[in-house]
């Protein structure tokens, strides 16, 4: 599902935090992804445009919600965008203990929660998931 501009895999990023958004977007672009941005669920729905926008992966980091709530939002967006179940959904967790740090937990057929710790953890997870979908 890569775009036709140099076969860059596309990540649809929903990032609510104004500070994290630019640095995350910049890193993703440096890693070779095309990045489509939305600020929250409502904005994401507008930008996804009822199945018009194609992406290889949904990446979501939202403020003030539980991980389960963010997962539900991600699943709703995947349905709204008319993506099939093979499009990976990655939720970045915010509150977690040391025991979960550094783990990427699979919570559905193609749904993941990443508990960030090391700098390259997200890079490695995205590479693994987008290569499975043929994006990289």
């Amino acid at each position, binding site marked *: 599902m890569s775009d036709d501009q140099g076969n860059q895999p596309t990540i649809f990023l929903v990032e609510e935090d104004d500070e*994290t958004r630019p640095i995350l977007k910049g890193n993703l672009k*440096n890693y070779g992804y095309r990045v489509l941005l939305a600020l929250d669920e409502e904005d994401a729905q507008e930008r996804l445009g009822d199945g018009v926008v194609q992406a290889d992966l949904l990446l979501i980091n939202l403020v003030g919600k539980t991980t389960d709530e963010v997962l539900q939002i991600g699943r709703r967006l995947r349905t709204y965008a008319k993506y099939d179940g093979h499009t990976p959904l990655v939720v970045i967790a915010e509150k977690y203990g040391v025991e979960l*740090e550094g783990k990427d937990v699979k919570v559905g057929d193609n749904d993941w929660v990443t508990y960030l710790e090391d700098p390259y953890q997200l890079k490695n997870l995205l590479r693994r998931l987008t290569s499975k979908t043929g994006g990289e």
Partner: protein
Amino acid sequence: MTQHSRAPTANRLLAHLSGDELELLRPHMERVPLSHGDRIIEPHVPIKDIYFPLNCLLSMVTTMEDGAIIESGSIGREGMSGAPVMLDASETTMPTFVQIPGEAVRVKASVVKDLYERGGALKKIINRYIHTVIVVGSQSVACNRLHHIEARLTRWLLMSSDGVGSHEVNLTHEYLAVMLGVRRAGVSEAAAKLQERNLIRYNRGNVLILDREALEAAACECYHVVRAEYERLFS
């Protein structure tokens, strides 16, 4: 002092005391190991002991009503806890706890206060130190308001490295997020940028500064302003 594996003069404030003052303090010094999370100062509780870190790092934090916490300042081997006692405040609003474990010299606050009131080198050194705390606080406000996460992380890593006297700093991911007042994804991504440039290596809470000179060059002006003021007063 019951043991002498690390000289008290590893703390830069104690290193600047006159020989006479150091000898007056020495019988009251106790070298103590401090563990991560140890509470040094509780808010609104009279401060009974002063800690002079030798290789540990203490954090002063501000806690909001909703539980949000952000660091107000850190205390390493270039400083001391309990400065409010010298200012006749006796207690403070901010808790102080041990962030990076290590050793410190502990002295009764009343002993340090008595010597401070005599007006010798100790008073001069502590007054200068309190001035640097104000400078750090002011600069941090500006930095947190105006500079992006990567610059703030860089400043914080350099200051922590200075505080413990090592290129290796052990910090939890959660702590970094709290101290910088950013989301955890922000910490990881900022660290990723520094690691991509081979300035640091970050792994499981251990930050190793690989290229100190380049990291300093990458830091915002805030680190250099504070560093220059400290060196002006303590070199």
